[in-house]
């Protein structure tokens, strides 16, 4: 079912979306909304948990800036059952990460409604801040992002966003469909029972599938799938630049362990051990074990990697981690025919198996 959200007084997509979210709070359909708010004075955008509908006047989920993966916030918000209903406005990669985290039992999905939206991508945070500083807080950066997306030339976006071919919220409970739709109309797609129930009480007219939207989405995702290629980088050489700052682990939505095995103190390295290793090899790189860190991280989480690219944005030495993890993830996921973040009903590859599979793994047959 596709609903048309437009109350007549709205002038932009953002207005329509705000109006919709306000209606959810006014009617007490949900108790709180997690959504990015935009500070009208500074132009800064930050995630906020909003319970007062007036707070949503500043809601701006379409701002092309992603500081954290909101799935990471949902872990904190749903750690214990509060009995309160939360609607989270999520980018597609955030919705996918949330689904993975529900399966990993890190997010409690019972009282959570995921509202996805068509996402044209985001700029690197530093580039975004430069734009707001140069052009003032009122600059229409979202409009520019949309233009670049529709032109099929997303080079100035974050590399992970420029490569992304799953940019609609198809796995969220609801999807706000606005790309290719006439301003200020926004379509509301219901993808689950939960989404359908929430949409029932809304003042919204039913509409047919919008052909303009379908066309542009098929075009861009097709182009991007074609462009997808091997990053062709020497991963070992690249990771030689790693500082082991653990930023990529901190921002990664799938790195949820409370005690990470990769902390130096967990690795059991005493000063004596380092020196012994240095004596054995003649010289060792310090901080040590950067390759061990990355290869282990890949083994642990790449099967669920949703390619949000936050690791790349967080890297202080500019390693193309988004591309690397994307490639690793794709190859691993292909082994099991698994696409992360599609449905809570798809089993995680590491908790299941088939009796007859992966014949190449046992190197030599008896």
């Amino acid at each position: 079912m596709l609903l048309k959200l437009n109350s007549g007084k709205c002038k932009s997509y953002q207005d329509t979306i705000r109006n919709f979210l306000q209606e959810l709070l006014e009617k007490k359909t949900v108790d709180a909304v997690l959504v990015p708010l935009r500070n009208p004075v500074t132009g800064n955008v930050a995630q906020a948990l909003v319970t007062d509908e007036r707070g949503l006047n500043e809601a701006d989920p379409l701002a092309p800036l992603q500081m954290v993966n909101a799935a990471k916030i949902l872990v904190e918000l749903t750690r214990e059952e509060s009995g309160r209903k939360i609607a989270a406005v999520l980018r597609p990669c955030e919705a996918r990460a949330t689904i993975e985290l529900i399966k990993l039992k890190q997010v409690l999905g019972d009282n959570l409604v995921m509202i996805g939206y068509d996402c044209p991508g985001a700029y690197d945070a530093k580039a975004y801040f430069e734009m707001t500083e140069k052009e003032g807080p009122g600059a229409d950066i979202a409009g520019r992002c949309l233009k670049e997306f529709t032109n099929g030339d997303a080079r100035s976006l974050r590399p992970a966003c420029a490569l992304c071919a799953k940019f609609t919220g198809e796995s969220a409970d609801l999807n706000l469909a606005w790309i290719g739709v006439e301003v200020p109309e926004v379509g509301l797609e219901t993808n689950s029972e939960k989404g359908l129930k929430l949409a029932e009480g809304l003042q919204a007219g039913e509409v047919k599938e919008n052909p303009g939207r379908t066309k542009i989405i098929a075009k861009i995702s097709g182009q991007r799938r074609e462009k997808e290629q091997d990053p062709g980088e020497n991963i070992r050489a690249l990771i030689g630049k790693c500082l082991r700052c653990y930023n990529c682990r901190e921002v990664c939505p799938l790195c949820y362990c409370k005690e990470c095995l990769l902390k130096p103190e967990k690795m059991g390295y005493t000063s004596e051990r380092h020196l012994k290793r240095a004596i054995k090899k003649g010289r060792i790189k310090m901080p040590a074990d950067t390759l061990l860190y990355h290869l282990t991280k890949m083994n642990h989480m790449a099967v669920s990697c949703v390619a949000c690219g936050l690791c790349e944005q967080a890297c202080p030495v500019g390693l193309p981690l988004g591309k690397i993890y994307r490639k690793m993830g794709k190859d691993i996921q292909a082994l099991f025919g698994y696409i992360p973040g599609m449905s809570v009903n798809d089993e995680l590859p590491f908790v299941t198996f088939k009796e007859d599979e992966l014949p190449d793994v046992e190197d030599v047959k008896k």
Partner: protein
Amino acid sequence: MEKKENDFEPKIIAFLCNWCTYAGADLAGTSRIQYPANIRIIRMMCSGSLDPTYVIKALLEGADGVLIGGCHPGDCHYLNGNLKARRRVAVMKSVFKNAGLEPERVWLRWISASEGGYFAETVREMVAHIKKLGPNPLKAEWAL
């Protein structure tokens, strides 16, 4: 070249499950079956409990090969740990391939408690294979 190949004695780290492959190695010993002394055995409760980090660490520290031994499918003491291990090893090999490491240095074998002879044969086979591959190039690298 020929001589160098013969001179090289690989070091192989073996992670063996307590219930099958370790018992198989034990049987090889008590049956006095000869096999090369290139292998260093670490006993685990189950091949499914092996975190990839230990395999990676062994290779980065300079081990020339890693053998992972588990029960035959259907024989796992914990029902299906070995089949989960197989998925992990598949992931490991895929990561190694993309990172420019050599996936052939990691072997997964199902060897039961009664297969002492097969255990010895596996070690012989693996040592020969690793000798052909040559020493682990990561041994000489310092920036890891």
